[in-house]
């Protein structure tokens, strides 16, 4: 994959706190990369480093082979959509969208045409003369996108672009956003703390925690083959139980379940089994690999239900048919081979 945008070992500290620690990743031309992580993971700092609003203490940012690390934001030709949009309140929607074109020295007629084109792309044709305060949150978000795209930037940066919208609007706007980005096929980096958003918008997703890049990959890779315990528990639903590594996961006082080592493990080493609800099932009759327990909670989700089962080894979450069990039932939990492989990671100290 030819790297259009490359981040190399980005380090940033604020005072004595390291907010990003050696973050390296790259994006191909036209690729959409999501930066996903809990709050405080450093994802917004990475974005601001790329935009040029912060200067890294170490590391480089390279676009099309050009090192832009020392370049002022106004000279990078990166478009950015801010979390609160940062629309200029004293200008109309059209003036906002045209702002970056004037900086490039575009003529008035040229600007008008491009503004109309960008507003049309954002589904806001005819909004040129609307005041920013007069339009809805979703429309503001689209004006912010049109403004960022108007000067034909090399890279598009989005900082939690949907977090200010109410949930009903969010899904629709997400699809619109994806359509617009695809249409101009621009290399995009966007920050989110919502997995669903990252999975739907991102070609690849970079998971950050405590300033470190934990893993970057397609949603499928992250879900099926998490590289670290953090990714395994942060992405999707999962149960974590203490086990011993024995070529599989040895449940304390119980059976050996098939599992993959998430990191090198010595035989007999203490580990944590991370297992998704899809990888567990209920057994109808006694089996050697069954772990007994009782159902403490049932969460209905349409054609399936999630069951929380208390066992001697710990709490397990099982995906099954809604009528498979009821709260209080004694059940037998067994591995479900068709689900994503359970993983064992070294026990956290």
């Amino acid at each position: 994959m030819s790297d259009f945008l490359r981040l190399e070992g980005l380090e940033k500290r604020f005072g004595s706190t390291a907010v990003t620690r050696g973050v390296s990743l790259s994006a191909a031309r036209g690729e959409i990369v999501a930066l996903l992580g809990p709050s405080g993971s450093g994802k917004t700092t990475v974005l601001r480093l790329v935009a040029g609003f912060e200067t890294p203490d170490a590391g480089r940012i390279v676009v099309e082979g050009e090192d832009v690390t020392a370049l002022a934001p106004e000279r990078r030709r990166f478009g950015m959509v801010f979390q609160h949009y940062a629309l200029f309140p004293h200008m109309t929607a059209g003036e906002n969208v045209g702002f970056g074109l004037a900086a490039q020295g575009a003529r008035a007629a040229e600007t008008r045409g491009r503004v109309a084109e960008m507003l049309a792309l954002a589904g806001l044709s005819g909004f040129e003369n609307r005041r920013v305060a007069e339009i809805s949150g979703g429309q503001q978000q689209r004006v912010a996108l049109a403004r960022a795209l108007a000067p034909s930037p090399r890279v598009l940066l989005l900082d939690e672009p949907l977090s200010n919208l109410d949930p009903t609007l969010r899904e629709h706007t997400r699809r619109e956003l994806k359509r617009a980005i695809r249409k101009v096929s621009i290399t995009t980096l966007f920050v989110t703390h919502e997995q669903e958003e990252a999975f739907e918008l991102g070609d690849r997703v970079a998971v950050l925690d405590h300033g470190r890049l934990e893993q970057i990959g397609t949603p499928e890779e992250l879900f099926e083959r998490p590289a670290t315990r953090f990714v395994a528990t942060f992405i999707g639903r999962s149960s974590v139980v203490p086990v011993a590594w024995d070529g599989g996961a040895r449940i304390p006082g119980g059976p050996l379940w098939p599992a993959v080592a998430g990191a090198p493990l010595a035989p007999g080493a203490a580990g944590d089994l991370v297992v998704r609800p899809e990888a567990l099932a209920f057994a109808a009759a006694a089996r050697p690999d069954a772990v007994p327990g009782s159902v403490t909670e049932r969460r209905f989700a349409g054609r399936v239900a999630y069951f929380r089962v208390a066992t001697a080894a710990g709490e397990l979450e099982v995906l099954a048919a809604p009528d498979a069990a009821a709260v209080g039932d004694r059940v037998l939990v067994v591995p479900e081979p068709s689900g994503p492989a359970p993983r064992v990671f070294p026990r956290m100290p």
Partner: protein
Amino acid sequence: MSGNRRGLATPLVALLLFWLVGYPLVLTLAEALGAPHWTLDHVLEFARRRAEWSALWASLWISVATVVLAAAIGVPLAFVFERNEFPGRGLLGTLVALPVALPPLIGVLAFLFLYGESGFVSRGVQALFHLAEPPWRLAGPGAILLVHAYSMYVYFYMFTRAGLARLDGSLLEAAASLGASRARVARSVTLPLLAPALSAAALLTFMTSLASFSAPYVFGGSFRVMTTQIVASKLNGDTALAMVETVTLALVGLAGLWLLRRAEGARPATGGVRGIAPRRRELGARRRWAAAVAGWGLTIFLLAPHATLILVSLVPRNTWTTETLPPVLSLGNYRSLFSEAERLRPIVNSLWMASAATALAILLGFGAASLAARRKDRWAGLIEGLVAAPWALPGTVFAIALAAAFSVDAPWAGRFVLVGTAAILPLGYLVRSLPLTGRAAFAGLRQMDPALEEAAASLGASRLRRLRRIVLPQVRPAIVAGASLAFLAALGDFVVSIVLYTYDTRPISIEILSSLRIQEIGVAAAYGVLLTVLSAAAFLVWGRRGSV
């Protein structure tokens, strides 16, 4: 954004501010300590004199009493206007705030014409009861407190109203739903939440009263407060003593500021969540009318001084002696203001000096704020402190300090002879205006979403273009508001002027005083009306741009 490319600008601005604000104060302190001979003689002399102690005590108790009186008038008024709906509420609510737009000397003048021994009210009472003598004299601490209460209740009124308007109505409803009586809601919810507004108003009133000069100067007579004591010492040529008095007043001001800030800091922070605005109570028909009548009556009382000023300004010279009302009215006084060169002079002086001072104060205030508003290092703290310092110190202190600093020719020490030139008064006004424009610029820049400037940068706008297209339009309302207050203060200034004026640079306020001395009361009032109109115009600009 990284600040390292600002390079030399920050230290240079800090140095300029120090030269204007800090240096004169340092020189004043040095002179109080007898520099270059360094002695405590002047301080000991100060401590030995009974008159000094009584002036200090008078300043303190007058200020405390002013706070109490102003709160007693302003807070209930704010509740009446903010919590009840009655006819004329909007208009009256604005008129009630009017005394704040009156330059202090004009307020004093209006009170003199209305309640003074030859004022309308006393003449009326004298005529009514056929008295041989005027029924009272408007003099001494009582008169000072009357004027103070009249002009400073507005601080409590405006701060309380703003506090009430910001109050989250759901808190009051929650308290009521928990069974609290109205009195308990007021005591245990409303008042604690209003505490920041009230202590801010108390601080402002205390400092304004401590710095008050016009009322003690005109009504005080032999009753001296520190500000009048300082000017008297200076006029008597007792420079060293004036310096000690100035330092003392400055210390009292700083101590007051420190005490009130500490009280503010000790209070737990209130939640920043904004809920619904409290609802206004619709009064029943009878109470509505009672409220309206009381409101209008109050307004007439509050506007009477302004009306008096206008009436007196229409009285030609030597036409009004013993009659209750002036027998002849004409526009002659106004004509003379604009047709006689010597009378036009103070108007031109005040206008150009206030304009120049305001323009410089905007430039310096905005420059300082744009360098320091978003930084948190030592330079930023120093710059903000220097910008705010003139607010914390009485005008008399700065007038004396500037007189001390700029009456010596020592360019190598940053001192020039400016006293006696046309430059010193604008400079004095500039120092006094700096907190108004500077704090407004600081506030404006801090309120601005930093992402706006970042967005402009990411769209390729240069620093200059960002300043012109994004930053200035965003902070302009705050700066215009600060500048109009600065202009208002400079135009009506009396405190600084009386220490630093020369005959050629005399401003309106000084001319009013000399007109009064030669019994030209009509001319004095005409100047007063003119100043009021100009000030009201500046105040309207401020009001339209929203408060800072």
